[in-house]
């Protein structure tokens, strides 16, 4: 009985932040000691009908950046990781990939920043995509390195022995077998990019307003209701992903894909 009560309590406490942010995003005026905002309305959400609103634009800027980064890392990482995985120096490459993966993205942004300035990429959409790509690519390699194994290599070699070309082997053998790995990489990288703040703010020079950047801007402006709304928009895609398949939300090193 106690165990079940604790579990229900735990599930409710997990769901509480979502409800809290939703209520706050609908609110206006929240003076102390009121428990709930004095006004609850959909006024803050009207941005959905205004294409020139900051939040509307921030949502699509975030979506565009995250999709671009996820597509590039998934595609390029898939091809490059295969050669890295079967290389004799695989472990050296893996350790090299772990360095940017472990470093805080904002520290990476500090050491990259000069090159982005001299190439005129700071404060641009492309600059943020490239910077996020440089941070997310090693992570993509680490995801794929768990995937390539001796069995896959044997199947690939079998395809060549049976007369399959390189293109046919990729199309008919490797890609169908890699569906889960590709989707995991795509969604994980999408989430990394979607959640990113420090690097985006530094390389974007505050000009590229993603949702995470908007949250901090609204907090600085003391507009907690819009900040709550931006937060709610930030957790929507991951929650949708959770609904589709919870396994895409989480990546643990050294697990079967």
């Amino acid at each position, binding site marked *: 009985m106690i165990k079940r009560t604790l579990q229900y309590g735990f599930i409710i406490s997990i769901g509480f932040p979502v409800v809290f942010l939703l209520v706050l995003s609908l609110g206006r005026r929240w003076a102390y000691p009121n428990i709930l905002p004095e006004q609850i309305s959909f006024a803050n959400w009207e941005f959905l009908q205004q294409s020139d609103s900051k939040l509307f634009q921030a949502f699509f800027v975030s979506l565009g950046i995250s999709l671009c980064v996820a597509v590039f890392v998934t595609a390029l990482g898939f091809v490059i990781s295969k050669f890295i995985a079967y290389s004799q120096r695989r472990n050296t490459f893996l350790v090299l990939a772990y360095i940017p993966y472990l470093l805080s993205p904002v520290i990476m942004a500090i050491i990259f920043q000069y090159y982005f300035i001299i190439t005129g990429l700071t404060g641009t959409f492309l600059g943020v995509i490239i910077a996020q790509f*440089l941070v997310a690519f090693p992570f993509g390699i680490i995801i794929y390195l768990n995937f390539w194994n001796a069995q896959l290599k044997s199947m690939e070699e079998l395809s060549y022995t049976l007369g399959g070309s390189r293109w046919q082997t990729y199309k008919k053998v490797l890609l169908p077998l890699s569906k889960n790995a590709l989707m995991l990489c795509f969604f994980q990288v999408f989430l990394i990019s979607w959640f990113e703040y420090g690097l985006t703010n530094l390389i974007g020079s505050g000009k590229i307003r993603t949702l995470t950047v908007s949250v901090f801007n609204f907090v600085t402006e003391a507009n907690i209701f819009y900040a709550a709304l931006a937060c709610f928009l930030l957790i929507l895609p991951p929650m949708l992903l959770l609904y589709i398949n919870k396994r895409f939300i989480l990546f643990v090193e050294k697990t079967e894909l």
Partner: protein
Amino acid sequence: MKKLYNIKSFSTLLFLIIVVLPVFCGLVYATLYSFEIVGIINSGFTTKHWEDIIQGSAFWSSIGFSFYVAICSVVISLIFALAMALSWKKNLQKGALSTAIYLPLCFPGTVMAFFMFQFLSKSGFLSRLGFASGVLEDINSFPALINDAYGIGIIITSVVLITPFFVILFSNIYHTENIEAYKELATTFGASKRQLLQKVTLPILLKKSSVTIYLFIIFVMGSYEIPLLLGRQSPQMISVATVQKIQRFNLYDIPKGFAMSILYVLIIMSVLLFLYFRNRDYFKSETTK
């Protein structure tokens, strides 16, 4: 065959260009700037900024504070995660809990930090509840959990974000490592419940997840958004302290910021190499075993 060799070489080259070259070039520029060889204020080679950083207390107190926050967050998370993974092991495999445990993973650090700020600050939701129920006399009676000197708000937020990850990890290891069978074997040899936990379950779970635990300590040490929103000016976590040095209006702080970032990168690289040589099996895959 030659074509395959070319693709391999090209892929390796591309990997090095994307992964190694930017970090290397960035570190070279940061090093030159920190010695005042390049940059706006360059006045010839000087080790002044490095001396300030190494001999001063700002960098080391930031590293120390980051390490303290990371250790506290990970240890508290491990305790909660082990308790949940072991007592709710069946429910974590199927049912509402098995999906609900993934929900906190949908929260980026920014969102969780904002939620905690609105929940735990002096004017936050918890304080309002306390006032309404008569527990608190006024707003100042509520303890300072946000922007506090001990990083309590940062630790609580990190714990909430990390714990579900460890619960899922331990739950998976428990089943893939077939710990139940080891426990049955130990029981037939007369092991008590406490011995099962201390000698069988915990050693297997912690040993199998050891590298992941170390990696999480590094991740928490480098976290930026949470301490930026919930931390205070002093002590600061290393990422926040470094960015602040770089972005200050005082140009003489920029070389110090670069020196701090180089030292931080060197520390992380040393820890990574240490982990690699201590846990070579972890970095091996089926293709190389």
